[in-house]
C-alpha cells in the first residue's frame, strides 16, 4: 500500500491499516465536501420534482420581480423563475466545472510530466504550449461552433484547451525540481523504469499544487462558460446555467441583485466543497503530510 510513497521513505512510513477509502472516510474535510457535492448532484438530478417550473418559460410581464412566495429567488429580465433556473442550472454548471477541471488536469499533467522529464521533448512540447496559450478561448469557441454547432461539447473543449498549457507548465516546473532530488536520482541509478519513476516519485509531489489549480479551473470554467454564452459562443442561452444567469444579470445588477446573488452563492458553495475535498484528498494521498497530522 505504499505505492505512492517514495521508496526511500517507505521503510519509515507505517503501513496503512485501512485502504485509501477508509482513510478518506475518516477525514472530516473530505466528508463535508463530499456531502455538499452529493447534495448538489441530487438537487440537479431531482430538479423537476423540487417545486420548480419550466426554467425556460418566459413571462415578460413578470420580469425582475424581487424574491417572494411566488418567486423564491425572484425572476430574471425575461420573467423566468430564478429558483427553477438555479436548480436546473446545477446540472450543466457542475458538469462543465468538473469535466473541464478533470480533462485539463489529466491532459496537462501528462504533457507536463513528459516535458519535465524527457529533456529532448521539453523544448518542443513547451513551445507548442506557448503557442496554444496565445489563441483566445473565445475565438476557439466561435470556430468550433462553426465546425459543429453550439453544444456542451464544443464549450467544454473550448474552455479546456487554453487551460492545458497552464497545468502543463505548473507540473513541468515541479518535475524539474523533483528530478534532481537524491531519491529520484537513486531510483534512476537503480534502473527503475521511467514510467514507474514518474508514477511513484514525481506525481505525488505535484498533487498539492494541482489540486489548487484544479479547483481554480473548475470555478473559472463555470464563469468562462458564462462569458462564452454571453458573447454568443456558449451553451444556448435558453438552457439555464449559473454562469449565463450571472452574465445576463450583469446589466441589472444594481437594480435586481438577486439575479446574480443566488447563482453566485451556489457557485461559491460548490467551489468551497471541491476545495475541501481537494485538501482532504491531498492530506490523505501525501504520506509525508499525513505523518505530520
Amino acid at each position, binding site marked *: 500500500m505504499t505505492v505512492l510513497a517514495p521508496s526511500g521513505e517507505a521503510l519509515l512510513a507505517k503501513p496503512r491499516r485501512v485502504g485509501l477509502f477508509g482513510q478518506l472516510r475518516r477525514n472530516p474535510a473530505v466528508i463535508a465536501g463530499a456531502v455538499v457535492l452529493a447534495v448538489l448532484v441530487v438537487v440537479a438530478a431531482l430538479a423537476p420534482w423540487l417545486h420548480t417550473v419550466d426554467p425556460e418559460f418566459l413571462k415578460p410581464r413578470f420580469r425582475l420581480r424581487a424574491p417572494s412566495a411566488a418567486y423564491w429567488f425572484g425572476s430574471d429580465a425575461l420573467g423566468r423563475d430564478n429558483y427553477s433556473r438555479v436548480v436546473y442550472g446545477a446540472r450543466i454548471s457542475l458538469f462543465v466545472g468538473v469535466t473541464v477541471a478533470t480533462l485539463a488536469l489529466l491532459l496537462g499533467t501528462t504533457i507536463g510530466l513528459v516535458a519535465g522529464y524527457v529533456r529532448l521533448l521539453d523544448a518542443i512540447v513547451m513551445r507548442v504550449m506557448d*503557442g496554444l496559450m496565445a489563441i*483566445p478561448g473565445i*475565438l476557439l469557441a466561435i470556430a468550433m461552433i462553426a465546425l459543429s454547432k453550439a453544444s456542451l461539447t464544443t464549450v467544454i473543449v473550448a474552455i479546456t484547451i487554453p487551460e492545458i498549457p497552464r497545468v502543463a507548465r505548473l507540473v513541468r516546473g515541479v518535475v524539474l525540481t523533483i528530478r534532481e532530488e537524491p531519491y529520484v536520482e537513486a531510483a534512476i541509478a537503480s534502473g527503475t523504469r521511467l514510467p514507474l519513476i514518474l508514477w511513484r516519485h514525481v506525481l505525488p509531489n505535484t498533487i498539492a499544487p494541482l489540486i489548487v489549480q484544479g479547483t481554480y479551473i473548475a470555478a473559472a470554467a463555470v464563469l468562462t462558460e458564462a462569458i462564452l454564452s454571453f458573447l454568443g459562443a456558449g451553451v444556448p442561452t435558453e438552457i439555464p446555467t449559473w454562469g449565463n444567469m450571472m452574465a445576463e444579470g450583469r446589466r441589472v445588477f444594481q437594480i435586481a441583485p438577486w439575479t446574480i446573488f443566488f447563482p453566485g452563492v451556489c457557485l461559491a458553495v460548490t467551489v468551497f466543497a471541491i*476545495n475541501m475535498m481537494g*485538501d482532504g484528498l491531498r492530506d490523505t494521498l501525501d504520506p509525508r503530510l499525513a505523518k505530520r497530522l
Partner: protein
Amino acid sequence: MAAFILKRLLATIPVMGMVAMVVFLILRLSPGDPAAILAGDAATPEMIEQIRANLGLDRPILVQFGAWLWQLLQGDLGNSLLSLQPVSATIGRCFGPTLSLATTTIVFSVIVAVPLGVVAAWKHGTWIDRSVMGLSVVGFSVPVFVLGYGWIYAIALWLRLLPVQGFVPITEGIGLFLSHLVLPTLTLSVIFIALIARMTRASVLEILTEDYIRTAHAKGVSERRVLVHHALRNAAVPIVSVIGIGIALLIGGVVVTESVFNIPGLGRLTVDAVLARDYPIIQGVILVFSAAYVFINLGIDLAYTVFDPRIRY
C-alpha cells in the same frame, strides 16, 4: 545559460509561424463575414458580395495566407478592415493600458498573497488558516464584474474618492494615472490573490514536512528564518509558475475588467475584433501574444534556476 536563452529566442519564430497559420485557418473557417459587417444591416447581398471581392476575401485561403505572410515579412501587419487604421498602431495603443494594469495587479497580488499563504501554512489548521482559505474560495467564485461594480458603488459613487472609469496615460500625471488604476487593480487582484495565496500555502505546507526543515527547527533556527529562507525558497517553483501564468493571463487581456472600467486594453481589442471578424487585427494581436508568451515563459524558466539552483538548462 546564454546559449539556452538564444535557443529559446530562436524558438519564438516557429511558434509564431505555427500560431499564425492555425489562427488564419480558424478565422477563415469561422462563420461570419467581415464584408457583411462592413456593409451594415440594410445592405443587400449583392453589395456584400462586391465588398468581399474588393477586400480579396473571395480568393482561396492559401492565396490569402500567402498574401498576408508576404506583407508580414515586409514588417506590415496590415490595416483594420473596419477603422482602416494600421494594426501595429492599434495594438501599440492598447498595449500601454494592459501593461499598466498587469503590472499593478501582479505587484499588488504578490505583496498581499505570498505573506498570507505563508502565514496560513505556518498556522496550518488554525482559524487564521481557515479564514485565509475561506476568503480565497470566495475570491475564486465571485464574478469579477460583481467586485468591480461593488468597488465602483462604494468608493467612486458613494465616497466619491475615485473616478468610475477610464484610463489616463502616465504622461498626463502620475496621480491621475494611478487614481484611475486603483479600482481595476483591486478588482482584478482578488482572484489572483486567492490563487497565489492558496498555491503558496499548499507548497510551503509541503516543504514544512520535509526532514531538513525539521532539522532546522531542531537546530534552533528562528521560525521566521525557517519560513522565509528554507520553506518559501524551496516552495518557490510552483508559486513562480502560477505568478507567471497570471502575468500571461493579464497580458492576454482581461475583457470583463477592461470593459467594466473602460480601459482600452488588448483584451477588449481582441474580443471586439473577434466579434467583428476584423481579421488583420485578430491575426496581429495573436501574433503579438504568442511572442509575449514565449518571453514570459522564458522569464519563468529563468526564475526557476534562481529559486532552485538544482534546476539547470
